[in-house]
């Protein structure tokens, strides 16, 4: 019922935002803050790892979409790591699968950034 956010630098000027827990109307502001801070500091190539996210709602999707819009303004991009079938389904249903790169592991998500 909570979210853990951890941010770390990866080789090649990319940043990984690792989320674990549930992203909902209560916890998504915390996710938004972490992403906004990275972007404000000039980091526009992000991998957001949803590997340990059990649940995401529309506010969580909204935060990811918002992040993507901002990094694109600077020529950057956001790749997601997601294996949970229920969460993948949400990206399918909403068509967001077409605007995010979605990968099974961090390595592939990272390589696809460049």
């Amino acid at each position, binding site marked *: 019922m909570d979210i853990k956010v951890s941010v770390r630098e990866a080789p090649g000027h990319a940043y990984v935002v690792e989320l674990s827990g549930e992203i*909902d*109307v209560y916890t998504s502001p915390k996710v938004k803050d972490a992403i906004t801070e990275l972007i404000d500091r000039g980091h526009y190539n992000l991998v957001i790892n949803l590997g340990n996210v059990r649940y995401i*709602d*529309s506010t969580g999707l909204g935060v990811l979409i918002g992040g993507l819009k901002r990094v694109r303004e600077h020529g950057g991009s956001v790749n997601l790591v997601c294996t949970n079938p229920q969460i993948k389904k949400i990206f399918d249903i*909403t068509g967001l699968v077409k605007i995010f790169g979605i990968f099974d592991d961090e390595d592939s998500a990272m390589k696809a950034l460049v």
Partner: protein
Amino acid sequence: MTQTTAGVVELRIPRRAEWVAVARLAVAAVANRLRFSIEEIEDVKLAVAEACTTCILQTDAGDQIEIYCETKEDGLTVRVRSLAGADQPSPLPAEPEPDARGALGIFLIQSLMDSVKHNAGRGTDLVMTKKVSE
């Protein structure tokens, strides 16, 4: 079997973001009493949570959210509405929000449930159903 699946469960939570998780878990437990698959239970959980989020994002919608679940052998009907608590005056009629806020949530509810009805009136009042598959 009818005896073990037909029933009414009512839940009221404060109309605040930090309580939506309670609605989500309670509704998952209710759905678990029916012959829903795990995926269907997740669908119901998200749809009800989105309805609660809709209640929260609206202004002037009272201080509580009521989640009314009616279970039958073949499916579940959930009504989610914002309402004023007993100790608070009735909310003013809510103006529909001009921006797209919540559109994604409503779209998800429509996609995950078999039917959704929006009752006109102040605040949010959504009635959604999901049938057990097969």
